[in-house]
């Protein structure tokens, strides 16, 4: 990634830093390239700088250092109203003194679009989010989900190429959120717009995005497609943050042939996939997804290391079984198994043997 001026770059953050107070860097060193038409999600814990990044892109904050480019042109010197970026705010920011129609008509009016054209576009945008019959109401007369859809329609009505959304679904209940997630991704793909989406809900990030940027501490910890992010986390923060995860602590014994031999703190040895560990003697955190743990030793490859485990709790969840084990001194080791006809249902107190493919067991930084 030496040359960031790649031809398909639509949005580019180039070594961007941001500080509000001159003492701490909220955004440390942001490099991000976004091709046209991509749906990128910024995911990260509260205070990790996601909104700050959006605000810099939209033009309401200036980068302390570095360059942000849109279509190859630096936008640091373009005022916000000339950037042509649609934005959905966390609190929707629908103008309370205007009707829904007036809200949608506003961006068209300031662009000098004629009345009949305006009305047609407003109607089309409202129909797109199935709010066609609400045009005459005020924002306060709509439910949260309806307001959200209007905010979306308003951000899209002037046909921007880039749309930014800052936790737009945060205030909705689960069911509505799922429906809206689906609608937003559909719309984005239909219209071919580029979307930068901010959330701290990881399910949302995984289900909606083409790529996800995991933020923490002002830097991108990992930028990948959802499946890569889930299955191949590059460090222990990402492994912990995305999905459920079992962690065992230990020390690297040796690394060879792409396999790391790890001695867990209780002395047992396991084979792991070395990710960001390099030399013997290093502390490591081994991470295994609960659904990749094998409880039937017969299904493991020959010679694979296994661990002894004691069943502490068995939870029946319908589609899956969730079993809590004690493994190598860790009482919170979770195993998820599919509710298949031949699947054994374990009982607390039972002693079993577990194992996994070395590929699924990732040795990460401690």
């Amino acid at each position, binding site marked *: 990634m030496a040359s960031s001026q790649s031809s398909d770059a639509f949005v580019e953050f180039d070594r961007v830093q941001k500080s509000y107070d001159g003492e701490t860097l909220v955004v440390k060193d942001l490099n991000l390239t976004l091709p046209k038409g991509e749906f990128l999600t910024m995911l990260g814990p509260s205070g990790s700088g996601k909104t700050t990044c959006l605000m810099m892109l939209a033009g309401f904050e200036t980068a302390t250092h570095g360059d942000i480019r849109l279509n190859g042109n630096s936008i640091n010197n373009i005022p*916000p*109203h000339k*950037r042509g*970026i*649609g*934005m959905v705010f966390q609190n929707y*920011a629908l*103008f309370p003194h205007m009707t829904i129609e007036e809200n949608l008509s506003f*961006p068209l009016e300031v662009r000098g679009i004629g009345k009949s054209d305006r009305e047609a576009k407003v109607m089309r945008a409202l129909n797109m989010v199935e709010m066609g019959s609400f045009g005459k109401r005020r924002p306060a007369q709509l439910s949260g989900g309806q307001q959200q859809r209007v905010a979306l329609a*308003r951000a899209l009505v002037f046909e921007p190429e880039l749309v930014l959304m800052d936790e737009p679904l945060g205030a909705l209940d689960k069911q509505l959120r799922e429906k809206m997630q689906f609608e937003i991704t559909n719309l984005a793909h239909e219209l071919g717009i580029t979307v930068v989406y901010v959330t701290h809900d990881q399910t949302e990030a995984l289900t909606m995005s083409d790529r996800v940027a995991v933020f923490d501490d002002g830097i991108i910890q990992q930028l990948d497609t959802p499946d890569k992010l889930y299955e191949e986390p590059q460090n222990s923060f990402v492994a912990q943050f995305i999905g459920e995860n079992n962690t065992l602590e230990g020390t690297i014994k040796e690394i060879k042939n792409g396999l790391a031999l790890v001695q867990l703190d209780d002395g047992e040895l396991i084979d792991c996939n070395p990710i960001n560990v390099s030399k013997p003697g290093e502390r490591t955190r081994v991470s295994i997804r609960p659904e990749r743990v094998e409880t039937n030793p017969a299904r493991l490859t020959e010679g694979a290391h296994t661990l002894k485990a004691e069943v502490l709790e068995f939870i029946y969840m319908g589609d899956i079984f969730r079993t809590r084990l004690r493994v190598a001194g860790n009482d919170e080791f979770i195993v998820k198994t599919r509710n298949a006809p031949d699947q054994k249902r374990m009982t607390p107190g039972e002693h079993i043997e577990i194992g996994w493919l070395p590929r699924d067991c990732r040795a990460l930084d401690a």
Partner: protein
Amino acid sequence: MTDATANGKPEMLTTADGKPLKAALIRAQARARRRAFLLVLPLLAFILITFVMPIGQMLHQSVYNPGFVMHEDIGSGKRTPIMTNLKVWFDENPAGTEPDEAAFAALHEDMLLLRELRAPGQVGTRVNYERGGSRSMFTKAARRAERMDPPYKEAFLDVDEEWADPELWRVMRDASSAYTFNFYLAALDRSKNADGEIVSVDENRQIYIKLFTRTLFLSVLITFLTFLLGYPIAHLLATLPLRYSNLLMIFVLLPFWTSLLVRTTSWMVLLQSQGVVNDALVGMGILGDDNRLQMMYNQIGTVVAMTHILLPFMVLPLYSVMRPINPSYVRAARSLGATSWTAFRRIYFPQTVPGIGAGALLVFILAVGYYITPALVGGADGQLISNLIAFHMQNSLNWSLAAALAALLLAGILILYWLYDRLIGIDNLKLG
């Protein structure tokens, strides 16, 4: 009226024990209502006694002046009807009749009673309200009444030729009934001529309409100036980080905590012709020493001092509507393609209108009735209608005229309030 209510009556809802639901509801709420009413009762009584009653009294006074018909002894409080004989003559003869001997005889009879009651001054004053120079005629005539002989007409004319003036008789006829609208006429620079027709008073005696117009104009100007100054301050207050905005708020409120007199006097110190501002201008060579600006004891003084004093009443309502306006509205507008000016005009400003309305109404109403500042710094030119009301209350003691002026002022404010309600809507008002 077809199916469900076949017998024409809707089915009555009842409670579980069969009582009508509505009656039960009313009974259930009655107790709560009684308690709520008891809670507001003290305030209600307070307002009735201190506010509604005095205003009613004032309105009554503006159309009622018994100076010509009733005497009340200050010591005993005994009330005696006076000028009764003349009243009888007025009732028997239509307006415009030339006063004959019978009229003067009645007048003589009444004068004797006045003399006895020591009340000629009171009656003279009442007539004097509408016809200058009449008071002394009454006191003089009453003094001579005992020594008068018929024919009384000549006797009175002997005392003063003016007793034949038809204008005087017109005024006495009007004054002979306690209820009159003449004070309102006077408050509008009108009076009745000898024939009882309503005419404007002499050009050089027209003051009230001019003062009303000036009061209205200056109040509008002051309201506008406070808006002009207050809007940016309120905006700054609402958007600055808290520790700065608190400091600024103290600066806004500081004048509030200073006595009105101190504030007004400090403006005198600043603006008078030997004051700080003039001295500074002269010192900088901008003005010659002999043509210092006259900024005090005229309208400029009134406007400057009142704008300053009333500014917080504009800033606070504005601040209270601006504070909760989320900055993301303007940001949204900007991201939707509006320039910062359009975003202000179309998005920010409309949301502050209720505060502007409240502030403007507050400042305007206060300004219209303002008294002390114009009295101190206004000179002759910067007086407002309240100063004249005060003058009639305290100096000329023509309370009825003062009441009429005050009632007109009240009516004017109510009309403006009504207009405001029609144009902007009173429920759009946000005082805080």
